């Protein structure tokens, strides 16, 4: 019997959370240390399986398979492939850095750490689950602590609204997607919720065309697809820092991960049919959200909309249904995860010290917190797709995929749309338009850098009772981990793309792209 890596990774945070909840409330340091130890442990295990995965063998590895509710065809089935492994590692990294930058939370520390850990249980599990019942079970586990954490520790002004909005949107998204999954379950008729069994089902083309959008767009709501994106900035802004990191860094990826795993991979014919529609939604996400980010005055809202914009690139990458596009989307999911976690951590550091996030009230903070400034700048360059950082490595294949993409199945679409999407310039035009977002992103990031970190430091931040101090040592460690990864992937992409490529090969074969 092999060591159950995935279960250990998934449930270590749960064990740690239970231990923490048993501590007396005033033992804050112990709660923090326990959380950090659990996070370090899961990160090391995730790194171990990341590098231990055998790429030449491919497929799902580290598999665990036990009966759970055999009467309903429900099993406890876990396994990871090259597409989910980076997501597991991402979750571990965001958990680790999230604990680090939450070190200073004094209000109900014990509960905060415990809920944060429980939240990560659901997230880890979702990326490892190969049984759809288990998948939805773990997905909902992630929702309950999220709502509580936003409402209890969130930004007082909007936490009820933001927490409620986010939770409702995510519930609706998962219910819509669940509906599609149930339809697949019934159609397959094998009485099994197992992902591998469903992958063998070979659904009829008409069925796929009807149900693909339900599953795909349902999950895309979790990835903040336009026009269902507004929960993301509102929710992220209302959430406490570590939760924003986990939400924007990882949970948006759950939506996109599931959209590929349960949407495109199970219903490839549906994906071919809907691809031109997806690409338009993705394009709107990319440009519209970038423009909205440009006109924000709240530092955290800039980052919130920036996430929406970047997730649009993942959607565009998926819509290309090509090797380059999907690999790029996979890389973008990881790259954006660490980048946005870094962004939210820096915003949190600024807010904790300056007690405001309004851009006009800030300025010159680089002098007080140089590490935060450098971290934000590195994240910013990743965000604008600057070469040398991971964002470029992710975006270039996506654009190549878009150039290459063609509408594959348009019969049944309205004539005007089929006429438009069948033009040879349809996808290239998307590439040309979406690339504009690079400059918009550069503008809002650099303006934020100039206004928050450079320029004149307001006098009350410099000295007196409102003086701004430097960040903690653990904050620096957390930022160094995230920044280091962005540069590492940017300079040496071979550390990630072969794995993602291996993981996507089965899907690409189904799509006829290999």
């Amino acid at each position: 019997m092999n060591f159950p890596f995935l279960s250990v990774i998934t449930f270590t945070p749960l064990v740690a959370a239970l231990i923490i909840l048993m501590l007396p409330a005033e033992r804050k340091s112990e709660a923090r240390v326990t959380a950090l130890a659990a996070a370090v442990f899961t990160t090391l295990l995730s790194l171990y399986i990341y590098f231990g995965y055998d790429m030449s063998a491919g497929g799902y590895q580290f598999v665990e398979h036990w009966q759970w509710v055999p009467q309903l065809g429900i099993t406890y089935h876990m396994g990871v492939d090259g597409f989910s492994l980076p997501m597991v590692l991402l979750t571990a990294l965001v958990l680790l850095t999230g604990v680090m930058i939450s070190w200073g939370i004094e209000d109900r520390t014990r509960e905060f750490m415990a809920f944060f850990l429980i939240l990560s249980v659901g997230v880890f599990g979702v990326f490892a689950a190969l049984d759809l019942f288990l998948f939805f079970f773990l997905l909902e586990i992630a929702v309950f602590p999220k709502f509580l954490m936003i409402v209890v520790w969130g930004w007082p002004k909007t936490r009820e609204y933001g927490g409620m909005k986010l939770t409702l949107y995510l519930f609706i998204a998962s219910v819509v997607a669940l509906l599609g999954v149930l339809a697949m379950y019934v159609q397959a008729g094998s009485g099994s919720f197992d992902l591998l069994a469903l992958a063998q089902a070979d659904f009829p083309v008409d069925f796929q065309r009807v149900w693909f959008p339900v599953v795909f767009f349902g999950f895309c709501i979790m990835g903040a697809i336009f026009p269902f994106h507004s929960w993301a900035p509102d929710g992220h802004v209302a959430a406490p820092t570590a939760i924003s990191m986990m939400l924007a860094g990882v949970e948006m990826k759950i939506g996109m991960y599931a959209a590929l795993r349960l949407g495109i991979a199970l219903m490839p014919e549906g994906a071919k049919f809907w691809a031109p529609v997806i690409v338009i939604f993705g394009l709107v996400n990319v440009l519209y959200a970038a423009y909205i980010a440009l006109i924000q005055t709240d530092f955290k809202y800039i980052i919130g909309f920036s996430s929406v914009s970047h997730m649009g690139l993942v959607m565009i990458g998926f819509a290309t249904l090509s090797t380059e596009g999907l690999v790029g989307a996979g890389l973008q999911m990881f790259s954006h995860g660490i980048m946005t976690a870094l962004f939210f951590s820096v915003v949190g550091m600024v807010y904790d010290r300056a007690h405001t996030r309004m851009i006009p009230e800030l300025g010159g903070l680089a002098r007080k917190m140089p590490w935060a400034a450098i971290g934000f700048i590195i994240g910013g360059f990743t965000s604008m797709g600057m070469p040398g950082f991971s964002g470029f490595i992710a975006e270039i294949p996506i654009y190549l995929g878009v150039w290459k993409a063609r509408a594959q199945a348009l019969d049944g679409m309205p004539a005007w749309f089929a006429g438009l999407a069948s033009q040879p310039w349809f996808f290239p035009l998307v590439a040309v338009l979406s690339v504009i977002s690079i400059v918009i992103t550069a503008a809002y990031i650099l303006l934020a850098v100039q206004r928050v970190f450079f320029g004149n430091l307001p006098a009350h931040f410099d000295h007196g009772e409102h003086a701004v101090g430097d960040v903690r040592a653990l904050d620096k460690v957390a930022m160094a981990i995230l920044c280091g990864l962005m540069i590492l992937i940017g300079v040496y992409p071979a550390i990630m793309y072969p794995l993602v490529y291996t993981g996507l090969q089965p899907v690409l074969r189904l799509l006829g792209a290999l």
Partner: protein
Amino acid sequence: MDSILQTNLLSLILFLPAAGAALLLFFPRDQVDAIRWTAFLVSLAPLGLSLYLWLQYDPTLPGYQFVENYRWFSVINSNYHLGVDGISLPMVLLTTLLTPLSILFSFSVADKVKAFMILFLLLETGSLGVFLALDLLIFFVFYEVGLIPMYFLINLWGSANRQYASLKFILYTMTASLGLLLATQVIGLTLGNFSIPYATEFWPKLTGNFFGLTAEGLRTVAFWAFVIAFALKVPVWPLHTWLPDAHTEAPTGGSMILAGVLLKLGAYGFLRLVLPLYPAESAQFAPWLAFFALMAIVAGAYASFGQTDFKRLVAYSSINHMGFVVMGVAAAAATRATADASHGIIALNGAVLQMFTHGLSSAGMFLLVGVLYERTHTRNLEDFGGLFPLAPVYGGLLLFTSMGSLGLPGLAGFVSEFMVVRGAWPVFTVFTALAMLGLLMTGAYILKGIYKSIYGPLNPKWAGHRLEISAREVVAIAPLLALMLVIGVWPTWLVGVINETITRFMAG
């Protein structure tokens, strides 16, 4: 050791500055002297290696030398592919020469020394990468990544209007590079890889239909995308407006590299990519290029003459001088593989030489303006006057450098501009003749600069001030002046290397 020098010499040159920057990270912030000297000594290593490279390079061999080729991003077939030829070699030497000199001059920077030196070394790696890259994506990577250090050099150490100037600099350049990025993607996609030698051979021959365009139509669109990106960097009129702002606000060391090296990236883009990848389009649109070059020469010179800010005057002079590079490129584009190729060869030799000599003279001019600014805290020409007796050494150096910039026979600028004009005259007679107007104005603005600063009646404000140039600054400019003189008298050592590559290229 010997084997690394043979197999990875270019990588060594390319990454030594970055390694030095990484080393500097571990220095305590207040050890400013240690930081300065380490940065300077580190930057001497690539210079030594590129001199070694120069000696080992064999101009008679066709193609690229010291080639390195490793897999980098194989899912999209992009390789870490480096190499040098007679066009890139002088640029490598120029970059590795100007960086230590700029660092030496920047010893006077007192604020955030560590960050300054780190950015400077990263800037060197970024620029060298462009000159060494033989893969379109790697080219683009370095082309863009070099913007980051320059942005911060302007933004953090610039003068009053630096926020505006730095943002304008980076957004203009990034916007213009979007087309380059898209066109690069299209080339990589249609050819299946990003290799520049491969693209040089097959991209011009591409046939078929792509994205609703014919191969010719696609090439024409991509041609203009490349031209706009590089023309903004050169900069060619009317895309030059970012330059005076960036230069005026940048710290002196930054201006030296900006004018000396970064402007060459654009011109180098024309030579390495636009001419080889788009021979037909280049020939077809060569008159347009020549026209823009003419406008840059004339308008740059007139605008320069109109300035009252000494640094802005020098900044506009760069537009004027770089116009000759583009004029040479245009003449070469029009005559490549025709009976007139011999004219194009001369013009293109002149263009590459002009890139080198302008690197020397503009860096020298910015250095001298910086010397004056550091002592007087003004750049307004009206505030100067009659400084020669106060600073005789400085006056002599300014006179010499200005004459080099002006194109005085016997100094480097004359050789290169003469070659461009000589080569372009039979090809674009009218444009070249009109460009002479610009040359006339060059004399006028240079003389205005010298006259207003060191000649004329002494501005009483400065009586008793110590304005003389320091020994360190003389050391920093001396190699530039020596090279200007050597090239002016005996350009063969440089032209010999350039000419072999260009002659082979112009044969088509």
